[in-house]
């Protein structure tokens, strides 16, 4: 078979980093070529070079053996190259259909043909096994639904080369199954697919070939059959990781947090306890109310009824500030949108929640600020030139470390982590697991939300399962497995019912 795409000796320098060092990959028709590597390995940069969003320093790109130069994404789209980026590029105020046809609207001479666009958009969405009202604006959809719209946008009309950067990160396992069905259909249509994911299981399920990047260099490329998961991990991190999930060895202490009959708009009558030294997992499908529960505890969303006790004392928390003062920290999901100040330095991002401890009279003490920020920066091994570096230039994993550092510095006794490892590479994931265990050993109470079930089962001592805003079960680490959790997570509804529920939740 001929090469549909060939990228040869691609070089790309960023200030201070060699992002791509003579990387060459090729893609055949009807093939899924997986690209793996840690954060900052160069995968996303390579995709941006392909699309023309980033200009390469040197190297060549061939499509059907013809040399091409793309200076902007619109030029690559002409060759039917579509890229689904990790961070969404949807317009929140436009409808699903309008987004899908953005830039190539169907028109009757002068006027938009909305009817036709709505019909075609709905067709594409249902191909993906989703049911989304295409006349709803994007800001009323859940993250998973937005991802589906993003995919629909890429495959509507003609596509020859499709690159997906972490497409499954916000999806549930059922939605992932649907996505893989679509990928298989696209393969039959001879579309070449570049697939980037941190979830190695997926790569073995859907991939034909795999290429591993590490620090901007190509370290391995072969048929997927020729490698196994452990080899891949070793190639990605350049070392072997002992055991997948380190266990928490801390002894369970006194009750540190008790939630009684807590309700809000999105959660219903939630009661549970958290103990010192315990890692408590919260499982559930997208829209089950996991993030809403921890946001309510943290004072970020309004509580309609219920009580919260810390160390047996009732507390009233009306704002995140009051939660922090009561010793609660919340590492939010979506660090870019809800956690970081992109225009600020690492130092300012870490110290923002603890400035009151760094005052010298009226002024912030540079010395106190620098020393405590530097301590966290070193301990968490943030990869950056210095604490004055802007967080905007950091990779996902290092950004997460910056937010983690902020919450560690607050010295809170109750730490809540919402999807702490989403979009983060294996090496840093491991560091985060160890960090969680160390915190537990210090006698802190930990709550972890994760959509990656093996991870959640692996690190939690106990797991609460939620469905439609309620707790449907509690399992111990030993008693938990994927099936039990999924059963409890879908307790109230058949899979079809879940869908209508999700749409309702989103609107």
């Amino acid at each position, binding site marked *: 078979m001929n090469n549909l795409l060939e990228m040869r000796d691609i070089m790309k320098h960023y200030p201070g980093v060699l992002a791509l060092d003579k990387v060459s990959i090729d893609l055949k028709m009807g093939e899924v070529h997986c690209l793996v590597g840690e954060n900052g390995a160069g995968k996303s940069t390579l995709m941006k070079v392909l699309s023309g969003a980033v200009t390469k320093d040197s190297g060549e790109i061939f499509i059907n053996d013809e040399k091409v130069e793309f200076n902007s994404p619109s030029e690559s789209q002409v060759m039917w190259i579509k890229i689904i980026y990790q961070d969404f590029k949807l317009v929140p105020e436009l409808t699903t259909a309008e987004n899908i046809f953005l830039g190539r609207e169907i028109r009757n001479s002068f006027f938009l043909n909305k009817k036709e666009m709505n019909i075609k958009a709905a067709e594409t969405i249902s191909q993906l096994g989703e049911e989304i009202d295409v006349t709803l604006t994007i800001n009323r959809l859940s993250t998973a639904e937005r991802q589906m719209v993003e995919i629909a946008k890429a495959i509507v009309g003609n596509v020859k080369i499709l690159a997906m950067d972490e497409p499954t990160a916000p999806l549930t396992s059922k939605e992932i199954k649907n996505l893989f069905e679509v990928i298989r259909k696209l393969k039959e249509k001879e579309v070449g697919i570049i697939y980037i994911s941190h979830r190695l299981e997926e790569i073995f399920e859907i991939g034909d070939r795999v290429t591993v990047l590490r620090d901007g260099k190509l370290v391995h490329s072969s048929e997927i059959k020729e490698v196994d998961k452990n080899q891949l991990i070793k190639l990605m991190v350049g070392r072997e990781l002992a055991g997948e999930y380190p266990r928490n060895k801390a002894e369970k202490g006194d009750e540190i947090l008790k939630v009684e009959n807590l309700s809000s708009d999105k959660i219903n009558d939630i009661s549970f306890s958290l103990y010192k030294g315990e890692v408590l997992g919260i499982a559930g499908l997208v829209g089950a109310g996991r993030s809403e529960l921890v946001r309510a505890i*943290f004072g*970020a969303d309004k509580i309609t009824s219920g009580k919260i006790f810390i160390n047996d004392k009732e507390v009233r928390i009306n*704002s*995140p*500030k009051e*939660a*922090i*003062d009561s010793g609660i920290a*919340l590492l*939010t999901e979506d660090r870019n*949108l*809800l*956690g*970081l*100040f*992109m*225009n*600020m*330095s*690492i*130092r*300012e991002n870490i110290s*923002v*929640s603890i*400035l*009151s401890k760094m*005052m010298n009279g*009226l*002024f*912030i003490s540079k010395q106190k600020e620098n020393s405590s920020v530097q301590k966290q920066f070193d301990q968490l091994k943030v990869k950056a*030139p*210095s604490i*004055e*570096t*802007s967080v*905007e*230039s950091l990779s996902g994993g290092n950004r997460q470390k910056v937010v983690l550092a*902020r919450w560690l510095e607050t010295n809170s006794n109750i730490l809540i982590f919402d999807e702490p490892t989403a979009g983060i590479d294996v090496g840093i994931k491991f560091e985060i697991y160890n960090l969680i265990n160390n915190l537990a050993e210090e006698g802190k109470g930990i709550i972890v939300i994760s959509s990656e079930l093996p991870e959640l089962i692996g690190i939690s001592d106990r797991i609460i399962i939620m469905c439609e805003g309620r707790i449907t079960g509690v399992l111990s680490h030993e008693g938990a497995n994927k099936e039990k959790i999924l059963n409890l997570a879908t307790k109230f509804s058949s899979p079809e019912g879940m869908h209508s529920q999700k749409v309702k939740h989103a609107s």
Partner: protein
Amino acid sequence: MPANIGRRKFVEVVSEFSIGIALIAEIILFSQFSQYFFTAENLLNISLQASITAIIAAGMTFVILTAGIDLSVGSLVAFAGIIATTVIKINVPVYLSLSLGILAGLLFGVFSGFIAGIFVTKFKITPFIVTLALMTIWRGASFVYTEGRPVWELPEAFSYLGGGRIIGVPVPTVIMMIVFITSHIVLTKTRFGRYVYAVGGNLEAARLAGIKTNKILISVYIISGVLSALAGILLASRINSGQPNAGLMYELDVIAAVVVGGTSLFGGRGTIIGTFLGAMLIAVLRNGLNLLNVGSYVQQVIVGLVILLAVLLDQIRKK
């Protein structure tokens, strides 16, 4: 340690540096054409002319850093001036009436800023609309209250504020310097200043990081209100009357100074030094063009072009 200068800091330093260069270039250019231009007297004169807008621009910088805008500043100048002059005319010993008048004017600035802040935070109305409404309300109120007639016959002592000198330097210039130095310290060295940048950079992240974002937002509108009122009192003193049409269209000059100074209208980026240089750049331009006998209509065109050029250069440099 130049390697330790972060990207944001670096961008800002470059931004201030390049406006500074433009300012110096401007001064050298005008010095070539007019002998009088580069004299101490004229430079002090420029600073006096710039002082009123510059003081308001310092307050506006706080607001714009939070991604807000305050359109009410010009009308505030008028109404604060009228309130102050009205109170000054009451029949009590002159120093008491002066203090009360100034206090009343400033308190009005606090009040207006507080109202703006409450509408922006509690009722979630965009700052543009809230302050547009306040702009119309205070302008209208100025005319209603004075029936369109200026407040005249003020005590001699009041004119010292706008017309007096301290060791040769005009009092408004001195006040402007105090305002800028204080604002700079507040923005760079205090917790409040850091929170202003955080709120402007990412409002929801700021709230979740434990910042009382509403308090910060209300505060910046109060700062803008108070500094506008202060400018209004200085202006009333200079023209020795409270005029209902004082400060007309000032909001545009002020926003221009802030934006030319490199502060982003999207919030989170900008400095008070930049605003100072921006205000001076425009004031020097106006003064130089006056000395060269350029007509005021042509001046408007030139000032507009310079604003466009300045923001264009800023944009190109950021890429």
